[in-house]
């Protein structure tokens, strides 16, 4: 700010004191701030750094935690690209002509997600996986109009449940549970039994919360043809570089989180809620969507499109209230995918698969351990039955700076799964670290 310019501005307005601009705020509601004085940048840096240092040094912790957030290697170029200030200091691209860069980058993101999921219509992001799922259920009801039940298998993330319940408040949609079988996958008999005319949609998570993959996916394809319900598939985008795209086996909507593609764990956020759907339903979609078009000279250009679905135009008749989303993380994710390329992604996915399976084998060889506990095909995460109380085991490993996996019986939803933990192994875990895990498990038992 230029010294003295405030006085010139006050003079221009014909007032002496800036307080006069607040004279319309009644005295009885005037308040003062009760917070400390500000810090200079130098002091600020050391103050905040010293607070963050109170965390356990991430380099000293060997983590096998997953359950929705995974530690993957992020190339330095991702940070550089998402750190371009023309990208991160811009707003939602309302003025397309001056925002082509962001628009094109987000169109690339949409195109990548379309390739991975096999569904052509993709939005620029939801907040995260649970909120994307909630929006998918609401969208299913907009498509189906008939029926008021949505089937959600029990082998899904506990954090989804409460988010779903909240988003469906005041709507006439009942969530009905479907059991999982001995292998942790959806109990198909139970699912068939619950399918009736009142069912508007089903949710299929693959990988499910136990890390397991649904193997007979054609079952879901047939199911859809027989019952005509909307099929929402939740997945991990990294596994999609190896797995048949859900769009090929009946998914109408695919949700997930793009965090494994180039987004740091960051204590759970910000991540990127994936939302893709069949081209048939584009007008029912929530969120911002970028479309391809031309400018006045016939040159290819991009802009936000189908905005009449959205809150700023359609208000109470909008498909969703979402406005601010996770666009920059979508851009970061797109840059990660391009940096890795199709071959690179496939290689990482295979490495995850191989390391996780190797680790499961090693754990399974240990006395009293069983891995995977749910005997099913998996990607990079699996269940482990432990011979001692999981929480106790977790605590003892923690003392050795190893986080061996998340105790599942600690969660209300899975309290009956005594001594079962969920262990993830990504490409980040070296052979030495896996050995450390094995040794610790041996020692604590």
């Amino acid at each position, binding site marked *: 700010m230029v010294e003295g310019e405030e006085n010139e501005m006050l003079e221009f307005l014909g007032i002496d004191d800036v307080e006069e601009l607040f004279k319309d705020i009644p005295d009885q509601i005037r308040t003062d701030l009760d917070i*400390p004085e500000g810090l200079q940048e130098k002091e600020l840096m050391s103050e905040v750094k010293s607070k963050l240092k109170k965390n356990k040094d991430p380099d000293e912790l060997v983590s096998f935690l997953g359950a929705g957030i995974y530690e993957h290697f992020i190339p330095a170029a991702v940070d550089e690209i998402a750190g371009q200030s023309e990208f991160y200091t811009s707003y939602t691209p309302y003025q397309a002509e001056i925002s082509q860069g962001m628009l094109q980058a987000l169109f690339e993101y949409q195109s990548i997600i379309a390739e991975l999921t096999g569904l052509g219509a993709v939005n620029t992001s939801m907040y995260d996986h649970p909120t994307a799922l909630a929006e998918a259920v609401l969208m299913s009801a907009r498509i189906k109009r008939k029926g008021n039940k949505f089937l959600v298998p029990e082998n899904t993330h506990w954090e989804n449940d409460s988010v779903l319940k909240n988003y469906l408040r005041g709507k006439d949609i009942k969530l009905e549970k479907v059991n999982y079988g001995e292998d942790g996958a959806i109990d198909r008999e139970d699912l068939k039994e619950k399918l009736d005319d009142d069912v508007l949609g089903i949710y299929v998570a693959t990988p499910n919360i136990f890390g397991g993959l649904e193997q007979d996916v054609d079952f879901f394809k047939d199911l859809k043809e027989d019952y005509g319900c909307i099929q929402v598939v939740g997945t991990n985008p990294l596994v999609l570089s190896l797995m048949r795209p859900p769009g090929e086996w009946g998914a109408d909507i695919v949700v997930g989180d793009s965090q494994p593609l180039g987004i740091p764990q960051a204590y759970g956020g910000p991540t990127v809620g994936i939302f893709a759907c069949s081209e048939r339903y584009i007008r029912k979609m929530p969120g911002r969507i970028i479309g391809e078009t031309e400018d006045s000279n016939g040159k290819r250009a991009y802009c936000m499109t189908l905005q009449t679905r959205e809150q700023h135009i359609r208000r109470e008749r909008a498909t969703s209230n979402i406005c601010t989303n996770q666009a920059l993380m979508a851009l970061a994710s797109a840059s990660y995918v391009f940096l890795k390329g199709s*071959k690179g992604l496939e290689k990482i996915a295979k490495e995850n698969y191989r390391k996780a399976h190797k680790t499961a084998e090693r754990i399974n060889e240990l006395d009293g351990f069983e891995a995977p506990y749910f005997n099913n095909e998996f990607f990079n995460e699996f269940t482990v039955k432990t011979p001692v109380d999981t929480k106790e085991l977790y605590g003892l490993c923690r003392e050795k700076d190893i986080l061996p996996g998340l105790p599942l019986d600690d969660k209300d939803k899975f309290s009956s799964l005594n001594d079962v933990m969920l262990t993830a192994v990504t490409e980040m875990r070296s052979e030495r670290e896996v050995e450390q895990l094995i040794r610790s498990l041996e020692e604590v038992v």
Partner: protein
Amino acid sequence: MTPNYRQARYDEELLIEKAEKREVEDNPLPESIARNEAPKIPDLPTHKIVRYFNRLSHMNYGIDTGFYPLGSCTMKYNPKYTEKLASLPEATTPHPYQPEECSQGILEIMWELQQLLADLGGMDSVSLQPAAGAHGEITGLMIAHQYHKDRGEERNEVIMPDTAHGTNPASVSMLGYDLVEIPSKNGCVDLEALEEAAGEDTAAFMITNPNTLGLFETDACQMAEIVHDAGGLLYYDGANLNAIMGKTTPGAMNFDIMHFNLHKTFSTPHGGGGPGSGPVGVTEKVSSYLPVPVVKEEDGKYKFDYDLENSIGRVKGFYGNWLVLLKAYVYILHEGKNGLESATERAVLNSNYLRKKLEKHLDLPYGELRKHEFVLSGKKMKDKDLKTKDLAKRLLDYGYHAPTIYFPQLVDEALMIEPTETESKETLDGFAEAISSIMEEEKELIEEAPKNTAVGRVDETKAIRDSVLSYMMRE
């Protein structure tokens, strides 16, 4: 004044177009689910990708490029120290389920931020979980919903003025509430209309104050009284909190629930659309309904509290957009008491200064004194058979991002302008001069704008007609 802005103009093909068909070899997955054909993503050298995105960034306009007076969006300068701190591995690496004892730094910052925001809003407690303003709104309404339900009351209406942000009515109908929109009187809430609308069906009343015209609703306390008497709750949309911080609070106006837009008031960057963060603050009356977990302090240790008596549960996975929370925390620490109050003062001074400069050129409906933003009418453009949109596009040629246009709807050909506190007098003078210059220009020049941006005027109708939403859909 000549429009001398020049944006880069590259013909960059999509990278995804360069992909070639390829089989997946040695797929370890079982045959029934194994992909045969690899996803069509190109394999390119790193430097090509870096150059591509770098060029795209040159075809994008951010607050670091220039003035961005997008009304209601609070495009202020985003300090660089917040970015630096939020990129430290201690902030970016932790897993959300790692033991609380390993996350004491994060938890302490989250706990402190809860306290700071509570004070800034005059609230009793805060949840950091919502990921955006609209997410905060819907969370607040979920709280109201549960509150009434627990009291055995079926209240199915939410009242708001016709100037409300689009997210307000959308949040209301997402939760199955009926919307009761009351007309404004002289740009503000009409107390008589509110009195008539409020009753036993009223679950909540939502406003932002100052409202979207930039006018302070001086009758806020009377509104609170009317709605409380009817048994409803008061919701404060925090989108415009930056106009009153240090002067008054939603709590002082007797509001029960509010959200904060950390990506507006607390200067975290908008990221081309997100991520944002929309913490919700509540007064004691409804504090037991907040989403869980919240962070609490016990004997100098910080931990998650999942045991709020009437909690609605979760609205998002994990604990909110932590890195955005961190940036807002850093900003508040840097500004402190005086910094935040002078930010409010300068934002309002800049707004009134620019308002007075511009009212010579464009119409200003509804009173003079504004807070952080003001709304002009572009109806003078009609004299040349042009629209506000044309004016907006021509501004791009002068190197300014256009204001928010066609909102609020009660102003004909609206231009909503929010200069923010971080802009200098020189910038504001330049912008006013550009508007003045455009008003003198020939119709054709304005109609054909923009000329200086990466592309010319974009055909939005074609985008809708073709609906190409991914490369896959182009074919």
